[in-house]
C-alpha cells in the first residue's frame, strides 16, 4: 500500500493571506515522499499478541538534501490495537486497547559518511554506510508486543493498526515553516489496518 498525506493547501493559503507571503514553493521536479506498507502480521507468543511490521519509506529529494546537510529527520511509528464494538448494536464505537510508539532519528554523519539511526526511547544506535540499509532498518519492526491475550475477548472485533510518519514538528524552525505548504515534506502513511480474530488466536 502506497500512501501519503494530502497537502494542506488551506494552511498555505491561510499563511499567504495572513502574512502576505507568496505561496511557499514546492519542488515540482522532486519526487513526492511515500510509504509502502509491505506487511503487518500478528501472532501469539507467550500469551502475548506480537506484530511484525514491514514498510518501505521513500524520502523525497528535499528530505535527502536536508539529511546530507546534517539536518536530522525524526520519524514516528505507531502500532495500536483497536477494539470495534457497536453501541446498542447500531452505533460503531472504537477504543484503543494499547499503543506502542517508536521515535526514531535518522541523520547523516558527513564526517564519517555514515547514516545513523537512533531509537530515541532505547538509545540504541545503528550506523549504516548506505541509506537503503538505514531505511530498511527504519521500516522493519519485529516481534512488537501489541497486547496480552487476556485483553482480547472472543466475539469482539479487533484491528491492529500501524502508521508511519515524518514528525515535522521536530524539524528545524525555518524548515518547519517551509514544510507547511510543501508536499515534499508530507510523509505520512495513514493508518494501515489488519483484522484480528481473537477466537483464532485462542485456538492456537
Amino acid at each position, binding site marked *: 500500500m502506497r500512501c501519503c498525506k494530502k497537502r494542506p493547501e488551506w494552511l498555505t493559503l491561510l499563511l499567504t493571506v495572513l502574512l502576505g507571503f507568496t505561496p511557499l514553493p514546492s519542488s515540482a521536479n522532486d519526487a513526492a515522499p511515500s510509504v509502502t506498507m509491505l506487511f503487518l502480521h500478528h501472532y501469539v507468543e507467550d500469551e502475548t499478541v506480537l506484530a511484525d511490521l514491514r514498510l518501505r519509506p521513500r524520502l523525497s529529494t528535499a528530505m535527502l538534501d*536536508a539529511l546530507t546537510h546534517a*539536518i536530522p529527520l525524526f520519524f514516528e511509528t505507531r502500532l495500536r490495537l483497536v477494539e470495534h464494538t457497536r453501541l446498542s448494536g447500531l452505533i460503531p464505537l472504537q477504543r484503543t486497547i494499547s499503543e506502542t510508539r517508536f521515535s526514531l532519528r535518522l541523520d547523516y554523519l558527513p*564526517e564519517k559518511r555514515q547514516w545513523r539511526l537512533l531509537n530515541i526511547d532505547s*538509545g540504541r544506535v545503528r550506523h549504516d554506510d548506505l541509506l537503503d540499509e538505514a531505511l530498511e532498518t527504519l521500516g522493519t519492526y519485529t516481534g512488537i508486543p501489541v497486547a496480552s491475550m487476556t485483553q482480547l475477548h472472543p466475539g469482539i472485533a479487533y484491528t491492529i493498526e500501524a502508521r508511519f510518519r515524518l514528525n515535522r*514538528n521536530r*524539524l528545524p524552525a525555518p524548515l518547519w515553516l517551509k514544510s507547511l505548504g510543501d508536499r515534499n515534506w508530507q510523509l505520512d502513511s495513514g493508518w494501515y489496518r489488519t483484522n484480528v480474530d481473537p477466537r483464532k488466536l485462542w485456538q492456537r
Partner: protein
Amino acid sequence: MAKIAGSLFNLLRQYGAITAVSVLTLVALVMLSQSLQQAATFAESYMLLLMIAIGGLVVLLTLLMRTVIKLWRSVRNHRPGSRITLRLAGMITTLVGVPILIIYLFALQFILQGIDAWFDVKTETALKNATEVVQLTFDSRSRNLLKLAREGGTLFQNDLDTSPAVALEKLRALLDAEEVSLYSPDRQLIAFSSASTDVNILPQPIPDNLFRQVRNGQPYAALEAREKPAPGQFFRIVLPVERSSDKALLQAIVPVPDQLVKPAETTERAYKEYLQRAFLREPLKTALTLLLSLVVLMALLSALLFSIQLVQNFTRPIRALTLGTRQVAAGRLKPLRDEMPDNELGELLRSFNNMVEQIKRARRTARISHQQSELQKSYLQTIISTLSSGVLTLDASGRLRLYNVQAEELLGVQLNRLVGTRPGHRLDQLQHAGFAELWHHLEPLLDKAAGPWQVQMTYADGPHTRILLIHGAPLGEQPRGGHVLVIDDITDLIQAQRNAAWHEVARRLAHEIKNPLTPIQLSAERLAFKLARHLPESERSLLEKLTQTIVEQVQTMQALVDAFTDYARAPRPEKQPVDVNALLDSMAQLYQRPGLSLTLDADPHCNNLHADPNRLRQLLHNLIKNAIEVQENQDTATVTLSTRCDDAEVVISVCDRGPGLPPDAAGWIFQPYATGKPQGTGLGLAIVKKIVEEHNGTIELASGPNGTCFHIQLPGQTHT
C-alpha cells in the same frame, strides 16, 4: 491619592488591553527571533511562539478594526470630535508608519544580504577539509588501535588460553581501553575487563552484523557514537584472536583522547552547522522575513491603536465642549461634568462652564422679566377688554395684532379673520363698505403720522350709522413701530350735544320770539280795526288781507314756537301704570274720521306699562299725525296701531302705507328740524325720540315702498 488611583485606573482602562497584547506579542516575537538564531532548534517551540504572535496580531488587528469602525461610524453620525480624531490619527499613523516601513525595507535588505554573506566556497571547503583531517586522524587512530590489539592478541595468546582475565587486563592497559571483552564463537562472554570499578557493569555487546563480520575474519575498527550513558564517541575494535581451543572475538572499547575530542567535536559541529545553515539559508530568509514582517505589523498596529487612543484622549475635551455647545444651542444649560485636564483645554472647559452659569442666570432673569411682562400684558388685556372703547393694535407692517370685543362690536366686523394680516388687503373678503371706507381714511394717517392723532368719522354699519372718534398713536419710540387705535362711539354724545343745542335754540325762541308775537298779532288786528273804516273799500280789503296775513304768519310762528317749547321743555315724566291697549284705543277713537282707516291690533297679553300717559299720548299723537300727513295725497289714509308684549317689554308699532322714507332716513329722521314736509316743524319725531328715551326705551324705523313703521320698545311692563 484617589486622584492618582483614578488616573492609573483610567490609564489601565484605556491602554491596558493594547499594552498587554502588544507586550505578549512582542515577547513571543523576541523568543521567535531567539529560536531562529539557533537553526537546529526544533519547530515545536517555534510553532507555539508563531501561533502566539499571530494570535496577538489578530487580537490587535481586531481591536484596530473595532476602533476604526467605531470611529468611522462616529464620523458618519457627525459625532463631535470624530473628524479631528480621524485626521490626527491618520497624520500620526503616516508619520509613524512611513519611517517604520522604510526601516523595515532596509532592515529586510540588510538581513537577507547578511545571511547570504555567511556563505562562501572557501569557508565550506576549509570546513570540509578540516573535517576530513579529523576523520583521517580518527581513521589512523582506529587502525593503530586495531594493529595494537592484534599484536597484543598475539603477545598474550597464551594468557588468553590460560587466564583470559589477566590477558584482557594487560590488553586493556596496552590499548588504554575503557573495556575489553572476549567472546567465544558462539557469542558467549569468556572474560571481561573494565576500567570502571562498578562490579555490576556489563560489557557492551557486539552488534549482530559486526559479530558475523568479524567471525568471518574481517576485523572491525571504527569510531562510533553513543547516546548512553553519556553522548560521546569511542573507538570500537573487534577482531578475531586465536586460542588453542577456538577462535575467539576480542572487543575493545577505547575512549577518544581528550586532546582529540574537543577539536574534533568543534570541527565537526562547525561543519555540521555550516551545512545546516547552507541548507536552511532560503527557509531562514523566509522565516526572518516573516518575523520582521510580524514585528513591523505589531509595531504598526500598536502605534495605530495607541495613537488613536491618544488622539481620542486629546480630543475628549473638544468633544465635550462641542456637545456642551450643542446642548446650550438646544436650550439645555448643563455644565460639563467631564474630567478637566490640567492644560489649556481644561481651562477652556472651565470657561465654558462659567459661561453656561452666566447664561443660566441671565435666562432666569429674562424668565422673571418675561413673567412680569406677561403679567403686565394680561393686566393690559384685561383693561383693554373692559374698556368701552374699541382698541386695535397694528404692528410695524400694518398687520392687525390685537383687538378687543368692543372694537368688533363697534365696527361690526369679525376682526379675528384679520389678525396677522393687513386689514387693507382683506377688504374684498370682508364685503363691508363702511369698514372699507373707514380703512381708506385711516391708512394714510397710519403711514404718515409720527405722533398721536385723532379723527372723527361717520361709520355706516348696515342700517346703523355711528359717529366714531378714532385716536391713533404710534407704538414705541422707533418710527413705524406699530400703532394703537382707540375707537369711541360718540354718536350719543353728539346727539346729546345737538339736543342741548336745540334745547338752547328752543329756549331762546320761546323767550325771544314768542313774547313779541302776541303784541304783533294784537297790533295787526288793532291796525286793521282802527284803519279799516277810514279807508276806501278797495284799500280796506287790501288792509284786511295784509293784516290777515300778518296774523296767520304770527299764528304759524306761534305754533312753531310752541313746538320748540314742547321740545325744549324737559319735565320729569310722571310715571304710573298705564293700560297701553286702552291708551291706543282712545287715540284711535280720537282720530276716527272719513278718509282715514285707523285700526288697532292690540295684544291681549299686554299688561299695564309703567309710564307717563300724557307723554305717551303726545308720542302717539305725533306719530299718528305724521302717518296721516305722509298719506295726504292718497284717497284713503291707512294707519295701523299695534302692540306686542312679553315679560320684559312692550312694543308699540305705528305703521302707515305711505311712500316710505329714503334708506338713510334712520340717521337723520329723529334729528330736530329734519322734515320732508313743506310745512313741518321737523320737531315731531325728535320729540317722539325724546319721550322714548325719557322712558328708557328705543325706537326703530322700518321703511319700504309699501309704508313705514315705527317700533317703540318700552320696558317696565307691570302685572298689576
